[in-house]
C-alpha cells in the first residue's frame, strides 16, 4: 500500500526558477526508498518539499489518502511524518534528554515509553543523556537527530544524508540503525550521496538529475544497471 505519494511536483526557492520539475515518487508501507543522484539534483529540496518547508508550485503530495502539500511543517509532523535535516540537526546547548523531549513537543500524551525505545535503539545516548548535544561526535549527533525524529512515533521518516561527514565506521552503524528502525514498521525515504550503500539497504531507489526523476527501480536492479553504476555509483 502506498503511504506517501509525490505527484508531479514542481518546487523551488525563488519564483522564477524551479529546482524540482514535475517529480513523482511513491513510498510503500514498510519500505526504505533511496533517492540518489549528483549534487544539486534536488534531493534535499525534495525532502523539504515533502515536509512542507517549501511549497510546491504545482502537483500535490499525499500521505495515505490525505493531501498534505501546502500544510505547515508542524501540521505534517502531527500527521506522522518526521524529518531529519542534513546539518544542524540537534539543539547543541540542550542535553540529549532535552533534545528527545523536544522531539515529542507536539505530543500531549505520555512519551516515556517512546523515549525508552529510542534509548534501547541507541544505548550510548542513554549513558550520556545529561550531556549537551553540542559536545557529541558526529555519529552520536546523528543518533540524537534520529532519536529526536522518532519521538513522534512517525509512520514516515525522511532522512537527509544521514552518513554525511561521518567516519566510515559510523556510516555502517548508522545504516544498521536505519534498518532496525525500518524493521519496527517505519517507512523511510533516505537521500544519500553514499549511493551504493544506501541502495544496498533499501528496497527501491530513485535516481534524480536536474530535479527530475530519471529512473526508478528495485535497488538490486539499480545496483546492477551499468549506466547507473557508471554515472552515480562511482564505477
Amino acid at each position: 500500500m502506498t503511504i506517501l505519494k509525490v505527484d508531479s511536483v514542481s518546487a523551488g526557492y525563488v519564483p522564477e526558477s524551479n529546482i524540482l520539475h514535475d517529480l513523482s515518487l511513491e513510498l510503500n508501507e514498510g519500505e526504505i526508498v533511496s533517492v540518489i543522484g549528483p549534487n544539486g539534483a534536488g534531493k534535499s529540496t525534495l525532502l523539504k518539499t515533502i515536509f512542507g518547508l517549501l511549497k510546491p508550485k504545482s502537483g500535490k503530495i499525499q500521505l495515505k489518502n490525505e493531501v498534505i502539500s501546502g500544510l505547515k511543517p508542524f501540521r505534517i509532523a502531527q500527521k506522522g511524518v518526521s524529518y531529519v535535516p542534513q546539518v544542524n540537526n540537534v539543539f547543541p546547548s540542550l542535553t540529549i534528554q532535552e533534545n528527545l523531549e523536544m522531539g515529542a513537543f507536539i505530543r500531549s500524551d505520555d512519551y516515556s515509553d517512546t523515549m525508552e525505545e529510542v534509548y534501547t535503539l541507541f544505548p550510548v545516548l542513554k549513558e550520556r543523556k545529561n550531556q549537551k548535544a553540542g559536545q557529541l561526535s558526529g555519529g552520536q549527533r546523528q543518533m540524537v537527530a534520529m532519536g529526536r525524529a522518532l519521538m513522534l512515533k512517525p509512520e514516515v521518516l525522511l532522512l537527509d544524508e544521514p552518513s554525511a561527514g561521518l567516519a566510515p565506521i559510523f556510516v555502517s552503524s548508522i545504516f544498521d540503525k536505519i534498518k532496525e528502525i525500518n524493521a519496527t514498521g517505519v517507512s523511510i525515504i533516505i537521500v544519500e550521496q553514499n549511493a551504493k550503500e544506501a541502495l544496498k539497504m533499501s528496497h527501491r531507489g530513485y535516481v534524480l538529475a536536474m530535479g527530475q526523476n530519471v529512473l526508478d527501480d528495485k535497488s538490486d536492479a539499480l545496483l546492477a544497471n551499468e549506466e547507473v553504476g557508471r554515472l552515480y555509483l562511482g564505477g
Partner: protein
Amino acid sequence: MIELIVYGIVLGSIIALGAIGLTMVYRIVGFANFAHGEFMTGGAYVALFVVTILLPWIGFPDSRFVPLSFGWRMVIAFPIAMAVVAILAIALDKILYKKLRAKKSGPVILAMASLGASFIIRMTILIIWGSDYIFYRPGLMRPALDLPLSVKIRPDQIFIFCAAIFLVILLHLFLKRTKMGKAMRATADNTDLALVTGIDTERIIAWTWAIGGGLAAAGGVLYGIDVQLHPGMGWNFLIPIFAATILGSIGNIYGALIGGFVIGIAQQVSTAFLAPTYKLAVAFMIMILILLIRPQGIFGKE
C-alpha cells in the same frame, strides 16, 4: 569603596533585569530592541498608576512594611506592572515587528522600528505624567542601615537585590524545568530545527516578549523604589543594558546577569573618581572597549 561596590550590585541587579530581556529578544526574535528601556519606564509608571490612583480609588488601605518604603499596594502593583508590560510587549510585536518579519525585513529595519516605538512610548508617558521626577511615596525619610565595613545601605536596596535574584531564579527554573522553557532554549539554539520539530516559533516569540517585557518592568519598578520615576529613566538605562548584554555575550542570559553586575559596579565605583553625571559614559566606554577587544563578549566563543 566597598560601599560603592555594594551600591553597584544594587544598580547591577536592575541593569541585569533589563539586559536579560534584551539578550533573549536578540537571540530569539533576532534584533536589538531599542524600545527595551521604555519597557522599564512603562513598568515603573504602571506601578505608579496602580499605587497612587487605582488602589486608593478602590479603597485599598495604605500600608508600609517598615523599614521598607512601600507596603501592600506595591506588592500588588509589582506583578500588575510586569503583566501589563508583558502584554504591551506582545502587542507591540503583533502590530509592528511581526509585520516587518513577515516582509522579511532585516535586523537593522527592526531595530530602527523599535527606536521609533521607544519614542512613542516615552512621549506617551511624558504626555500623561509630565516631565517631573516622581516618588512612589513622596516625603518619606529613608534612613540607611549601618552594616559592617562601614557600608550604609537602605533596606529598600537589599530588597531590590533579593527581588532581582528571585526573578532570575524563577526564570532559570522556567527555562530548565518547563516544556515551554526548554522549547524556548531550543528555539534560541536553532530556529529552523525548532520549526521542523513542530515547535510553534511564533508562540515562543510571544513568550520571549512577555518574559523580556515583564523583567524590564520589574527593573523599572525597582529603580523607581530605589531612586525616583522620570519618563527618560528607561532611555538612560539603554546604554548600561546594551553594555551588559554585549559584555555577557549577546544571547547569553547568564552572561547578561553577570554583565549587569559588572556594569553596575563599574558605574558606581567610577563616582569615586568622576562626577556622577559621567556614569553613563563609563558604561559606554566599557561597551566600546569590549567591542574593540572581545566583541563576542566574555562568554562567547572565538
